[in-house]
């Protein structure tokens, strides 16, 4: 996926190298920290799914690193690091949709607007996908991005929904609004990274990588702070 990873050792702007380093170290830190905090018997399953998401992204980055070290380059288009990223957003989706959504959304008619407004997030990602398709005009090249975009569209919908949805009993939702805002930002920055990479715009790619790396660093501490209130 992030084929420009191989540029770490070549000449380029320092800040892009730092962004790429963050993209590799962020999920690693997030996964290890999250595993220590949440891979326990009594920890919330929601938190464990978020940690697994970071673990999946970490595996994707390790795969890229290993492939680059062993083959000397990264394959064009689809490779298994894409599955690492897809798995990451599937875990985030499992947490938001599978674990949380049933608790917060009682399917009442009065909440219809809270179900419609969040469509803005997937619409934004869809627009990015259409832009990419028009720019590249080759479905085989952007195939892997389209898989990621499809999953991120659904995942970002639930993040935005839980960000604006009225709170339910015990403040379950209110306490993780920070997590949802951060994850929505992380998802959009990852989409930015994909677009930047495919159109060969290093600045876009660098900003996307920097923000995604920072998201991976920050998400577990923010989630930990929020979910602590569940037990109070």
């Amino acid at each position, binding site marked *: 996926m992030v084929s420009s990873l191989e540029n770490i050792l070549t000449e380029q702007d320092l800040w892009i190298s730092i962004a790429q380093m963050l993209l590799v170290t962020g999920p690693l830190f997030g996964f290890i920290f999250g595993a220590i905090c949440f891979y326990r*018997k009594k920890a919330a*399953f929601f938190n464990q799914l978020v940690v*697994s*998401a970071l*673990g*999946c992204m970490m*595996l*994707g980055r*390790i*795969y890229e690193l*290993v*492939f680059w*070290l*062993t*083959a000397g380059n990264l*394959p064009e288009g*689809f*490779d*298994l*690091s894409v*599955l*690492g990223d*897809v*798995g990451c957003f*599937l*875990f985030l*989706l*499992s947490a938001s*949709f*599978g*674990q949380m*959504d*049933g608790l917060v959304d009682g399917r009442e008619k009065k909440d219809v607007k809270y179900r419609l407004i969040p469509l803005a997030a997937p619409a934004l990602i869809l627009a990015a996908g259409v832009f990419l398709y028009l720019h590249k005009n080759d479905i085989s090249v952007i195939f892997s991005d389209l898989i990621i975009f499809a999953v991120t569209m659904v995942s970002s919908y639930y993040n935005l929904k839980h960000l604006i949805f009225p709170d339910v009993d015990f403040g379950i939702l209110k306490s993780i609004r920070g997590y949802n805002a951060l994850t929505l930002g992380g998802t959009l920055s990852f989409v930015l990274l994909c677009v930047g990479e495919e159109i060969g715009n290093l600045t876009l790619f660098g900003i996307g990588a920097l923000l995604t790396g920072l998201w991976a660093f920050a998400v577990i501490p923010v989630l930990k702070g929020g979910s602590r209130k569940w037990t109070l």
Partner: protein
Amino acid sequence: MDSLMWNLFICIALPMALSLFLMKGRARVVVASLVVGMFMCMFAGAVNGLIRKAIGASRIFEITTIYTPMTEEIAKAIPVFLFAVTISDEKERIVPMAMAVGIGFAIIENAYILISEMGSWGPLSALARVFGASLMHGVCTSVVGLGMSLIYKRRKLFVTGTLALLTVAMTYHGIFNALVQSSYSHIGLHLPIFTFVPILILVEVQYRKQAREKAAAENENRAKEAAENEKKVQVEG
């Protein structure tokens, strides 16, 4: 798929299948899962052969690090999924079954690789290869099985969760395959040991702790019951 693989399958799987009639309970499930794993290896081998034909045998590194992890993990997950749907989704039953499917898969794969590359494997490197690959296949499938046991009852999680777990197994498998075929093969062969042995030890410790706590709670209950019975006897007396 060449005849060597079929011959290996017949030589190993058939006697094991025959021995199923002598077994009962958990042993029968485990051995049957080993045989199923071997069969799924044949299936994955056939699919991989088609992929090799389509892409070109010269791109073998790309095939084995991108496509075969996907086909193999899907092939191993199919029997685990069917077991969860038709027989049991309990963690205690599904995890050993999934592990056995993975190990069965590794038996045929290892035998095929070691025999077809007869001269290039010494006893120690063969031992490392067999141990590393068996552990990798076994635990990757167990992870999928463990996940299925956790998410099967939560319908909303099932599709996304199962796919997510498959991506974990595939990516890890891809890392292993890439390392094993490179000059870092020693790291690749030891990777499953360094990754999974600590986890297995932790899980075992946790199981034992739980078993101890359960036994202590049972003893306490028994002691309470005995004390109550004694009181009753005294009152009646």
